[in-house]
C-alpha cells in the first residue's frame, strides 16, 4: 500500500517570474510525436514557455478547487516597481507584485497569458531581490497561518547577471521558515536527464552554478530544466483520499438470544479499493446572436485580427442539462390494427407531448402492467447494522472471479485493546487454518444486506480482515457454453480429434509460449539484485483519468488547441501498455512456432459453405443465437444469400397474412382482450385495454370487482375513469344505485374532458353522455341530466375544453336538455318547458348555447 501523503492543501505558492528582455527571446519547440511527418515546430518566447509551467500548476489548483491551495505571482525585471518591501522601506526596484495571494481562477490564467517580456533594459541583479520579496510576502501572509506550507517557484532563463551577496543569509531564512524552493530554468543543464545546452553564455553558466550552490544550501529545494519540469507536471499523481472509518459490529453467533456462546467485536471499516473515475467534461456551445452577428460570421475571415485586439470574439457558454418528460400517445385512435400499409403512412405521427413534472406519478412496471408506488420504493426489508458471520470455509474454495466489488478493510476498534485482541485472535486462527468467512453485511439499520467474504490479512504490526462482496443467487448468470475439451458427437461418443481440439503438438507449442512470456522475473531489480515481477498495481496509473486531466489542463491554459497541441501522455502512464522488450524478444521463437502450428485465419470460416445441407443463413444463426450482431468483427457479414433467404421468408409470410389477421376479440375473456392491444407495439403497456375512440362498441374487459379494483376510480365513486361506460352499465344493471351512478358518470365525464390529452377520449365521452341521457330518461333522473349538462357546459365551454363542447353541440338533437314533453313521454317530469328547451336549442344554432 502506498504511504499516506501529507494532507493536501494548506499551501501558498508564489511564482517568481523573470520578465527581463531576454525572456522575450524566441525558441523553437519541437512538437513530438509524429515521426512520419515533418516534426511540427512552434515559436514561443522563453517567457511564454516558462509561464506554461506556472499555468499548469495553477490549473491544478483550480482543478482541485481547494480554498487552502493558493498562489501569488511576483515578476522581476519589470520596468516599474511595486512590492511589499519597496512600499515600506524603498529599494527592491523592478520587482512587481503582479497577482496577490489568493485562490486562483480562470482569470488568473488569462492574466498570466497576457504577460509580455520587458523591452527596456533593467539592472540584472533582481533575481535575488525577487527572492527576498517573495520570502517577505509569504511570511507576511502566513504569519497567522502557522500550519501552512510556503513554496517559491523561480522561473528564469538565467541570462541576467546576478549580484551574489548575502545568499547564505537568504538560504537560512528560507530554511528557518521551512519554505520550499523550486528553481526552474530555461535550458538549464541537467545531468539527470543528460541535457547540456550548447553554446551557453558565460553569464548563464555562472548563474547556473550559483543556483546549484544556492539550492544545495536550502533544505527543501529542487532545481531543474524547464522542458523536464513541464513533462513532470503531467506525471500521473494519485489523488490521495483518506477513507473514513465506519463503525460497526462483527457478530459470530446470536448475541441477543445466546450471549454466552456468541461473540461481538466492535470494528471499524474503511475502503481498501475504490473505483476512481475520470473528471467529467462540461459541454460548451458558441453563443451567437442570430440576427446582427450573422453578418459578422460571414465576413469574419476578413475582419479577423490576429494581433492583440479584441476583435471578433465568440462567447462560448457552458451548457446545463435539462430533463423534460414526454409522453407518447396516439393522436388518433388505436383502431389501426386492420390498416394496410397505405393507411399507416397517413396516420398522424406519434407525437411526444411534453408533460410537466408535477403531473407525474411514480410507479413500477410489472411486465407491461403498472403498479403505482408514490414513494418510489416499497417497504424496505428490516435489517440491523452489523457484519454477521454465517460460516467458515477453506480459502482454496474461494472463487476469485466472484468478487464483484470494491474491497474493504475491517479493523478492530482502535480505542479498545480487548476488541483488538479478539479480532486479532480470529484473524490469526483463520490465517493459520487458511479459512475465509462467509458474512452478511448491513451497513446501517434498514439498508439492504450484502453477502461477502472475510479474508484474514496480517500487516506487519496489525491484524485485520479484508472483505469483498460476493454475488447473490440473482447476480449470477448461468449461460451454457459448448464444452471446449470434452466434445461428443451425435451418437454421444467422445470426440478426441477435431479441428476444435488442440493436438498434443499444439499444446506443446503453447506450453513453450507460456513459459517464454513469463513476467515473474521481468521487472525491476530489488535491493538484492533479484528481478521482481513486471507490473505492479500500485504504480499502474489509470491512463484515462490522467490523460483526461492533462487534456483538461491544457485546454484551460492555451488559447488555441490547433496551434498548441496537447503533449503526448507521460511515459509513466503508458509504461504497461506493451510488454517488456526483453520478454518480447525472448518469446519470438515460441511465438513463431505458435503462429505456424495454430494456423489462425481471419474470418476464414465465413467463406466455407456447407456441403451437406445447403443452408444459406447458417452463419447468421450463430449470430442470432448469441445475439451480438452489433459486434465489430461481424459487421462485414451481410451477403446476398442472406438477403435472398430473408425475402423467401417474407414471401411465405405475406402469403399467410390474410388468414392470420387478428380476430375479433371475445370480450368475456380479459386476457385475450389485452393481447389484442399488445402485439408489436410497445406503447400500450398498460394492463387496461385502451379505449377505442371510434365510438364503436367499447371493449369491455369486465374486471372482476374485488380482484381488479379500478386503480383510477376516485374514492367514493362507483364509476372509474378507465372504463366509465362499462362501469356505468354494470351499475345500472344491478339496478340499486342509479342516482349515484348517474351522478358519478356525469362527474367522470367532466373529469376526463378537463384532463390533458382529453381529445383522444372525446368520442368515448360523447357515447357516455348518450347512454347517460338515455338512462336519465328511463329512470327519471331528468333533473340530474339537465344539471349535469349545464355544469358540463360551464366548465368546458369557457376554458376547460371548448372543443369537447363543440362535439356535444353537434349531437344537440339527442344530447340536449330534457324538456317537459319528452320527459312526459317517458313518464317523467322536467321543470324545463318545451319552449325554453326549444329556444335554447334554436339558440344553439345561433351559437348561443343552451
Amino acid at each position, binding site marked *: 500500500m502506498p504511504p499516506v501523503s501529507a494532507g493536501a492543501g494548506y499551501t501558498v505558492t508564489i511564482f517568481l517570474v523573470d520578465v527581463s528582455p531576454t525572456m522575450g527571446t524566441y525558441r523553437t519547440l519541437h512538437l513530438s510525436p509524429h515521426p512520419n511527418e515533418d516534426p511540427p515546430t512552434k515559436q514561443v518566447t522563453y517567457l511564454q514557455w516558462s509561464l506554461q509551467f506556472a499555468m499548469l500548476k495553477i490549473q491544478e489548483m483550480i482543478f482541485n478547487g481547494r480554498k487552502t491551495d493558493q498562489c501569488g505571482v511576483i515578476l522581476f525585471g519589470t520596468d516599474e516597481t511595486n512590492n511589499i518591501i519597496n512600499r515600506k522601506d524603498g529599494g527592491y526596484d523592478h520587482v512587481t507584485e503582479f497577482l496577490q495571494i489568493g485562490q486562483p481562477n*480562470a482569470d488568473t490564467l488569462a492574466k498570466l497569458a497576457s504577460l509580455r517580456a520587458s523591452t527596456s533594459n533593467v539592472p540584472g541583479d533582481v533575481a535575488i531581490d525577487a527572492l527576498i520579496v517573495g520570502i517577505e510576502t509569504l511570511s507576511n501572509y502566513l504569519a497567522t497561518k502557522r500550519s501552512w506550507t510556503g513554496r517559491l517557484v523561480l522561473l528564469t532563463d538565467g541570462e541576467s547577471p546576478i549580484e551574489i551577496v548575502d545568499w547564505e543569509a537568504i538560504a537560512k531564512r528560507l530554511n528557518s521558515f521551512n519554505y520550499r524552493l523550486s528553481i526552474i530554468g530555461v535550458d538549464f543543464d541537467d545531468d539527470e536527464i543528460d541535457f547540456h545546452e550548447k553554446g551557453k553564455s558565460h553569464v548563464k553558466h555562472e548563474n547556473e552554478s550559483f543556483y546549484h550552490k544556492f539550492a544545495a544550501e536550502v533544505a527543501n529545494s529542487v532545481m531543474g530544466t524547464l522542458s523536464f519540469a513541464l513533462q513532470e507536471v503531467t506525471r500521473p499523481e494519485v489523488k490521495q483520499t483518506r477513507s473514513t472509518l465506519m463503525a460497526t459490529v462483527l457478530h459470530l453467533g446470536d448475541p441477543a438470544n*445466546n450471549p454466552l456462546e456468541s461473540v461481538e467485536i466492535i470494528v471499524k471499516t474503511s475502503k481498501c479499493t475504490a473505483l476512481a473515475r475520470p473528471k467529467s467534461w462540461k459541454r460548451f456551445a458558441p453563443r451567437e446572436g442570430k440576427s446582427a452577428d450573422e453578418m459578422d460570421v460571414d465576413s469574419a475571415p476578413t475582419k479577423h485580427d490576429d494581433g492583440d485586439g479584441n476583435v471578433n470574439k465568440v462567447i462560448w457558454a457552458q451548457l446545463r442539462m435539462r430533463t423534460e418528460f414526454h409522453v407518447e400517445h396516439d393522436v388518433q385512435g388505436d383502431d389501426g390494427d386492420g390498416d394496410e400499409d397505405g393507411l399507416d403512412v397517413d396516420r398522424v405521427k406519434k407525437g411526444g407531448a411534453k408533460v410537466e413534472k408535477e403531473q*407525474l406519478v411514480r410507479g413500477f412496471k410489472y411486465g407491461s402492467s403498472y403498479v403505482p408506488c408514490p414513494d418510489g420504493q416499497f417497504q424496505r426489508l428490516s435489517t440491523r447494522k452489523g457484519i454477521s458471520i454465517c460460516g467458515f470455509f477453506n480459502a482454496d474454495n474461494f472463487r476469485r472471479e466472484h468478487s464483484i466489488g470494491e474491497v474493504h478493510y475491517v479493523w478492530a476498534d482502535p480505542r479498545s485493546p480487548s476488541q483488538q485482541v479478539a479480532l486479532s485472535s480470529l484473524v490469526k486462527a483463520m490465517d493459520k487454518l487458511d479459512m475465509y468467512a462467509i458474512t452478511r453485511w448491513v451497513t446501517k439499520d434498514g439498508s439492504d444486506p450484502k453477502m461477502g467474504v472475510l479474508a484474514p490479512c496480517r500487516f506487519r504490526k496489525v491484524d485485520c480482515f479484508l472483505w469483498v462482496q460476493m454475488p447473490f443467487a*440473482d447476480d*449470477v448468470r448461468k449461460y451454457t457454453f459448448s464444452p471446449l475439451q470434452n466434445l461428443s458427437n451425435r451418437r454421444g461418443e467422445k470426440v478426441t480429434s477435431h479441428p476444435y481440439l488442440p493436438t498434443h503438438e499444439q499444446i506443446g507449442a503453447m506450453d513453450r509460449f507460456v*513459459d517464454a512470456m513469463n513476467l515473474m522475473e521481468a521487472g525491476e531489480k530489488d535491493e538484492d539484485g533479484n528481478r521482481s515481477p513486471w507490473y505492479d498495481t500500485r504504480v499502474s496509473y489509470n491512463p484515462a483519468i490522467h490523460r483526461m486531466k492533462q487534456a483538461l489542463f491544457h485546454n484551460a491554459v492555451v488559447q488555441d*488547441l490547433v496551434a498548441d497541441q496537447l503533449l503526448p501522455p507521460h511515459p509513466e502512464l503508458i509504461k504497461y501498455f506493451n510488454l517488456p522488450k526483453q520478454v518480447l524478444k525472448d518469446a519470438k521463437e515460441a511465438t513463431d512456432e505458435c503462429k505456424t502450428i495454430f494456423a489462425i485465419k481471419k474470418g476464414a470460416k465465413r467463406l466455407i459453405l456447407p456441403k451437406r445441407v445447403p443452408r444459406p443463413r447458417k452463419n447468421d444463426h450463430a449470430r442470432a443465437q448469441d445475439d451480438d450482431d452489433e459486434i465489430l468483427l461481424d459487421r462485414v457479414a451481410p451477403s446476398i444469400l442472406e438477403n435472398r433467404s430473408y425475402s423467401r421468408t417474407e414471401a411465405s409470410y405475406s402469403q399467410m397474412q390474410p388468414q392470420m389477421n387478428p380476430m375479433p376479440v371475445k370480450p368475456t375473456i380479459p*386476457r385475450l382482450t389485452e393481447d389484442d392491444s399488445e402485439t408489436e407495439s410497445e406503447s400500450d403497456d398498460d394492463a387496461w385495454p385502451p379505449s377505442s375512440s371510434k365510438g364503436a362498441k367499447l371493449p369491455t374487459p369486465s374486471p372482476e370487482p374485488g380482484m381488479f379494483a379500478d386503480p383510477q376510480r376516485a374514492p367514493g365513486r362507483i364509476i372509474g375513469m378507465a372504463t366509465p361506460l362499462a362501469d356505468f352499465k354494470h351499475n345500472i344493471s344491478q339496478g340499486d344505485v342509479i342516482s349515484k351512478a348517474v351522478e358519478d358518470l356525469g362527474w367522470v365525464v367532466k373529469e*376526463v374532458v378537463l384532463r390533458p390529452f382529453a381529445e*383522444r377520449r372525446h368520442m368515448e365521452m360523447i357515447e357516455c353522455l348518450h347512454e347517460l341521457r338515455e338512462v336519465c330518461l328511463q329512470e327519471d333522473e331528468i333533473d340530474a341530466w339537465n344539471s349535469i349538462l349545464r355544469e358540463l357546459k360551464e366548465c368546458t365551454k369557457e376554458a376547460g375544453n371548448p372543443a369537447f363542447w363543440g362535439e356535444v353541440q353537434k349531437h344537440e338533437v339527442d344530447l340536449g336538455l330534457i324538456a317537459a314533453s319528452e320527459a312526459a313521454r317517458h313518464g317523467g317530469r322536467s321543470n324545463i318547458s318545451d319552449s325554453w328547451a326549444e329556444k335554447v336549442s334554436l339558440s344553439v344554432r345561433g351559437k348561443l348555447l343552451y
Partner: protein
Amino acid sequence: MPPYDDWNKLDEEEDEELQDTSYFERKHDVILFAIDCSESMLALRDDPNHEDAKTSHLLSALDAAVQIQKRKVVVGPYDSVGIMLYNTARRNENGPGSDIKKGTYVYQPMSTINATTIIDLTQLVDEAHDNLDLLNEEYPSTEKHIPVGDLFTSCNWVLRDGAPKSATKRIFLITDNDDPLEGSHNSRLITSARTTLTDLLQAGVTVEPFFISTDDRPFNQHKFWANVLVTSSESDEDFDLLPVSLSISRIDDLLEQMRFHEVPKRALFNIPFELAPDLVIGIKGYGLVTEQKKGAYKYFVDLGDKMEVVESITTHVDEEREAEVEKSEVLYGMTMGATAEDEDTQEHGFGTRSVRAGRRVFYTAEEVRSFRTLGLEPGLKLLGFKDRSELAFEDNVRHSLFIYPDEGTYAGSQRTFTALLISMVKKGKIGLVRALTRRNASPSFCALLPQEESEGEGWAEPSGFHLIPLPFADDIRAAPIEEGIRAGKELVDAAKMNSAYQPDSYPNPALAFHYAQLEATAFREEFDPDSFEDHTLPKYNTIQRKAGPLIKEWLKCLQNDESAKAVIVEAGSKRKADVSLSEAEVRSRYESGGLMQLRVDQMKDFLKSKSLALSGKKADLTERIAEWLDEHP
C-alpha cells in the same frame, strides 16, 4: 432503466452521450412454450414436493411457465411469452391460433409479460392441482403424435404473429416423448421436421428443448431428436458434434434447467485477442456476475383512462439564452474556476469563455474519446503470464467478465484458446492483459483466470477465462491503521461450517422483498411481510451446535488475555479530559435507574465504543443505551 439492461452494460459506459446503448434496450426476448399434451404428459404421478398429492408433467410444465414469467418480470420486463400446447384435440375457436395446424392449441398468445396473464395461468395451475382431471378434460390428447413438422410450423406462425421482429425468439420445447414417430422410419416425416425447423432457424428462432426423463421411461435423445435438432453452431466441420442446448432432466429439475435459459445468452463484446503480434484470435465476452439491482421507479402520467409511462429526455441548454443547443455544435472542455470575475464573466454570465473567432479552445467528441481510449482500438492484448498467487484477494474493484473463443471471426481461435487454457491450468498461471472492451471504454489491465469445464451432473461450469479487472494505483486506498494490539497466542480453533461460498444459497433478500411487494400489488393481493423469509441470515442453530462450545472457550481465553489489558495512548493533544465510563459503571447506573444523570458526552462516548449511532437528543441516547444493555445482559 429496467434491471435486465444492467446486465448488458459495461461499467465504463457512463457517458451516454457518446454511447449508443439503445441496441440493448430494444433487444427483447420472446419465449414460446411448446408443451406436449400427450397422454404420458397428462398422466398423474406422485407430486415430489407434496405428500399425497398428484401432479402431471403438463401441470409441472405449466407451473414452470408461471415461474419463468414471474422471473421475467425481474430480468426482462419487456420480454414476451406465449404458451402453445400440442398433441391436444382442443382447438382455438377463433382469435389467435385458430388457423394453426391441427393438434396444436394456443393457450396463451404471445404478449408482453403482464400481471393478468400470469394470474390467469396461476389460476389454471391452482385449479388443476385441486381438480386433477381438469387438464385432461380441457386439453385432451390426440390419439396419435402430430407430425413434428406441424409442431414447428405452428410455432413459426404463432411467433410470427406475436413477436416483434427485432427480438430474440426462442421456443422452449417440453416433452417426454423421445420417439414421436413411434419407431416408424418415415423419412418423409423426418425431412418435413427438418425443413420446418430450418424455416424457424431462418426466421431467427432457436429451439431450446427440455426433455423429461423418468425412471420408467428414460429419454433417449439419439432415437429421434438429435437427428432433427440441428443447432445454429453447426457447420460441416462440427456436424457430428452434439448440440449443446439439449437438456434432459427429471421433471423436478425442469424449472432449474429453464432458469439457465431464462435470458438468452448475449455477448457484451466480440473483439480480437492479440496473444502476440500477428497471433490474434477472436473472443466473445459475457457478463456472468453483475449486481442485479431493483428496477428504478418510472414516472407515469394519468391520461384519464390509463397510466402511460413518460420518457425523460435530456437536452443541453444555454441557460442564459434558454435555447436548446444542437448536438453538432457542442464541444467539450473544463469548467471555469469557481470565482472567475473577469470582464467576460460579468458581461456574459457564469461559465462562459470568450474565444477569438477562428480559434478553438474546446475539444471535439472524437478528441475526448481518444483521451479516454488513448487511441487504442478495442481488443485484448496479452502482456505475459504470472503465477496464480500473484492475483491478490484485495486486487478487485469490479465484477469480472467471462471470455470464450469465437471461431467465427478467426478460424482456429477455439483450438488456440483451448491450448492456452490447458497450458495455463497445467502451469498454475494467470495471464496479464491490456483490455479495451468497447470503442468508448477506457483501457484497463486485467488478470486472465483460466477455468476448466467441470464434468458431472447438473450445472457444469463452462471452459473459458475470467477477465478480472485489476485496480489502478488511483483506486487503491491506504490503510488508515498501521498499528494495533495483537493476540499473544492462538486463541481460536475455528470451526469449519461451509465448503465454499455458493451464490445459489443466497438469494438477495432485499430484491426478493421488493419484488414480492411488487407482485402482490400487481396481483392485488395483500402482502404479508412476516411471511417473508430471509435466507441470508446466519443459521444460528447450526453455528451454536457446531461452534457454541468453541466460542465459549474463546471468550474465556479473551478475558484472560494479558495484552487485552494494555492501555492505548491516544495521539493528539487536543483530547478532552477523559470522560469515559466503563461498561460496568454505565450498567450499574442503568440498573439503579440513574442513566439520565449521565452527561451527554459520557453517553456518546459509551455509544461510540459500541459502534452505535450518536444522533438524537439525550432521551434518544438514553433509550439507545438502555436497549443495548438489555440486549447484552
